[in-house]
């Protein structure tokens, strides 16, 4: 129980620092946007690539 509470608190602290720290959030947002663009590109190509053919 104590270990669980501690690890949950650690996770909360990590999430808070990654999301609410302005500098870290800017870097993380950039990374998320790039990952999203890459993943979105792959999904679009696999799903609709053939339909977009000229």
């Amino acid at each position, binding site marked *: 129980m104590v270990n669980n509470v501690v690890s949950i608190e650690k996770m909360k602290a990590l999430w808070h620092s990654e999301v609410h720290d302005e500098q870290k959030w800017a*870097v993380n947002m*950039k*990374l998320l*946007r*790039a*990952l*999203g*663009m*890459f993943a*979105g*590109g*792959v999904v*679009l*190509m*696999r799903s609709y*690539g*053939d339909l*977009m*053919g*000229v």
Partner: protein
Amino acid sequence: MEGFSPPINTAQVDAKTKLDEKVDYSNLPCPVLYEELNREATMALKPELFEGFRLDYNKSLNQKFFLSHSILMGPTEVPNPTPSSEIIKIPTANYDFGAGFIDPKLYLIGRITTDGRLNARAKFDLTDNFSVKANALLTDEEDKSQGHLVIDYKGSDYRTQLQLGNNSVYAANYIQHVTPHLSLGGEAFWLGQQLMSGVGYAARYETDKTVASGQIASTGVAVMNYVHKVSEKLSFATDFIYNYLSRDVTASVGYDLITRQSRLRGKVDSNGVVAAYLEEQLPIGLRFLLSAEVDHVKKDYKFGFGVNAF
């Protein structure tokens, strides 16, 4: 009616045939070069964009010798001494003269530019499977000259390379096909001047329609890309490049459209850059080039046009 088998029989036969397929591990194909793992994505997403006017003229003297002349006139970005985010450009012009010798087993190419750089490349195929390449760049700037030697061995289903460079640069890589579609590779390198060593790993999966590859290195760089070939004429590509140390990250999505007379490539990336590059073959033996790159975040707009003459 008797002559046609019902669809379900066809499906069953197909399924059985597919189940019976076996991989012949003694007859795997040969992989691409380790440094060319990303070549499809690079061709689609990284065309030679330029700004200003560009003229390239290539003249063949005979079957093996050729000369080339290149002119590039346009603005060049210079470092901004003030901490402003504005971009400073000054107009410049450059002329390159090149000469080349191309033979099935040996090629030699040299280029010299008016800003004091000499570029030389050579490749010699000792046997069908063994080749040596050398590159050199000589400049009038202090400590900027470079030399590079690459020894390349090609096996039936693997390739390996050894690289030596000045400033104590050593690298080696190996890539192996492990299934008919998947190849895996690794590399190790030592940069003596920076006292840095590293390792890298790579994987590439390719079929007739798609190519996916990824690379990661202990220097903190990770690369992934994916190319989908819709037809012989049209491909879509996307890539992702991340540098853990500098926290730089970029993702791009683009296309590559090839028709009989022209080739059009375009892309948009996660840093707000939109680019397009058009090559059009004109009937009179010229190739017409249009280049455009718009960086909305930096407000850096580059447009170029050029001509290739043969």
